[in-house]
């Protein structure tokens, strides 16, 4: 497991400055749902650049459009103004190679865990055309290798109802990664878990990211989670959201739960918290 060794350059991912290729770019992008009098602005004009292999967290008050950004990047929502460029191309209705995971693991109850994890391989080329041939050999090994990386070795043949919530969420991460996406979009993936399980999964996600190095965009309510995992944290304002602040997180990796109680970490948390409290008050007064 040489690749899992922490590497110095992981500490503090560079903010894109032209040297690193831009993986995700939102330029003056806004989203409004509905039309005319019923129009609801979900996202104010937002500009955001995320480099290839970067880990970015989006935090902000509820309903501020964090999930809208994820849905824009994945192509599930079209921008009302501006553009979304992913991997150098504008996102139209075009299919993207992304992995997604939500709070609800949505494992299909009639399939074993390994078959659930292999589901994206049935959809995405080039795996799709090989699926019938390789599902019992190579693809299955691939699924089980991922399961081993998240500490679920030997659980591939179990059914979803035989696993706990934390285990299902680990399997969910495996499903998001099986087709080797260059981009991982996570929408409060650990929101429904208890504190200890959540902290355990932070480490697992960190290991997975260091191993596979996808570009990650994580939406979360949990500031500790954002500070633990991300290389950069974007704080958003209340609806219609826009990005208020970007903070680089330069703690060395792999980070540990113990580090989250150190003064620097706590200070970062408090700074983020102040932004969100302000945003919420502004919303209530406005």
């Amino acid at each position, binding site marked *: 497991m040489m690749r899992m060794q922490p590497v110095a350059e992981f500490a503090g991912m560079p903010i894109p400055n032209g040297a690193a290729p831009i993986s995700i770019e939102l330029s003056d992008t806004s989203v409004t749902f509905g039309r005319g009098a019923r129009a609801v602005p979900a996202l104010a004009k937002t500009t955001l650049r995320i480099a290839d292999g970067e880990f970015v967290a989006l935090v902000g008050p509820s309903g501020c459009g964090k999930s809208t950004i994820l849905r824009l990047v994945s192509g599930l929502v079209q921008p009302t103004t501006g553009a979304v460029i992913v991997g150098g191309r504008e996102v139209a209705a075009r299919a*993207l190679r992304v992995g997604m995971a939500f709070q609800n693991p949505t494992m299909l109850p009639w399939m074993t865990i390994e078959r659930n994890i292999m589901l994206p391989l049935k959809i995405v080329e080039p795996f799709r055309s090989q699926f019938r041939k390789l599902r019992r050999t190579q693809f299955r090994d691939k699924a089980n290798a991922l399961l081993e990386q998240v500490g679920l070795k030997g659980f591939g043949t179990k059914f979803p109802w035989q696993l706990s919530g934390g285990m299902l969420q680990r399997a969910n991460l495996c499903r998001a990664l099986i087709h080797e996406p260059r981009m991982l979009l996570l929408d409060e993936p650990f929101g429904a878990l208890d504190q200890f399980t959540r902290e355990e999964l932070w480490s697992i996600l960190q290991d997975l990211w260091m191993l596979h190095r996808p570009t990650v965009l994580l939406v979360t309510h949990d500031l500790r989670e954002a500070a633990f995992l991300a290389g950069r944290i974007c704080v958003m304002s209340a609806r219609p959201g826009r990005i208020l602040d970007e903070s680089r997180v330069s703690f060395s990796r792999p980070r540990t739960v113990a580090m989250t109680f150190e003064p620097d970490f706590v200070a970062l948390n408090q700074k983020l918290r102040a932004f969100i409290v302000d945003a919420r008050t502004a919303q209530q007064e406005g």
Partner: protein
Amino acid sequence: MPNLDLRQKAWSAALIVLFFVAWELFCLTTGMSDLVLPRPSQIFTTLVEKFPILLPHIIQTLATTMLGFVLGVALGVVLGAVIGVSKTAYDTCYPLLVGFSSIPKVAVVPIFVLWFGSGTVPAVLTALSICFFPIVVNIATGLATTEPELEDVLKALGASKFDILWNVGLPRTMPFFFASLKVAISYAFVGAVLSETVASNRGIGNVMMTASSNFNVPLVFAGLFVLAGLGVALYVVFSLIEGRVTGWATRKNDLIVT
């Protein structure tokens, strides 16, 4: 647990036997005329004696039931899939479907007879029209309950509507579908017999009608027994298929019990 299960089955069997014994005794003690209510023993004897004559009619009834059922299922699945995929289609079509389904099906038999003459065709059509509704509703409901998050995950991968329907929607619908098959086969059977009774010269329904007008009451009851037997058999077959195909939907309960 199997012990308890066995005891339960023994009680069920005992109740059935008790029912027939009580019936037999009731007829014997009250001296009931067999023109009103024949004894079970008479009915069984008639059944055995007339079986060679009944057999072609049994086959006829079964065939019309199955044909109507298969066509009803095909129609129901297609219609259910179309309605279930789109919320708008679901809301739009639902009132009309409820309207159709609430027509007593005996009332449509004369229309089918008018169009196609008496015999097999109206029986098949009655079976079809009576059995497709539960299938439509169950398929549509199963499809409509697919989790939106999972749909997003797959859409973000570039899955087409068909991919999602095939990999997620339809398998999720299977428990609903097989539960509805059990209901539908019973309905189809009712429809077929109904139509045979009104307008046909073949089938168990017709045998019973003819026997009744000849005051051959034991034969009427023998027909009834045949229908009961067939109905139970069809139900059991589809329950077994359901258990095999969609065991995942009930497996959780098994775990808790054992």
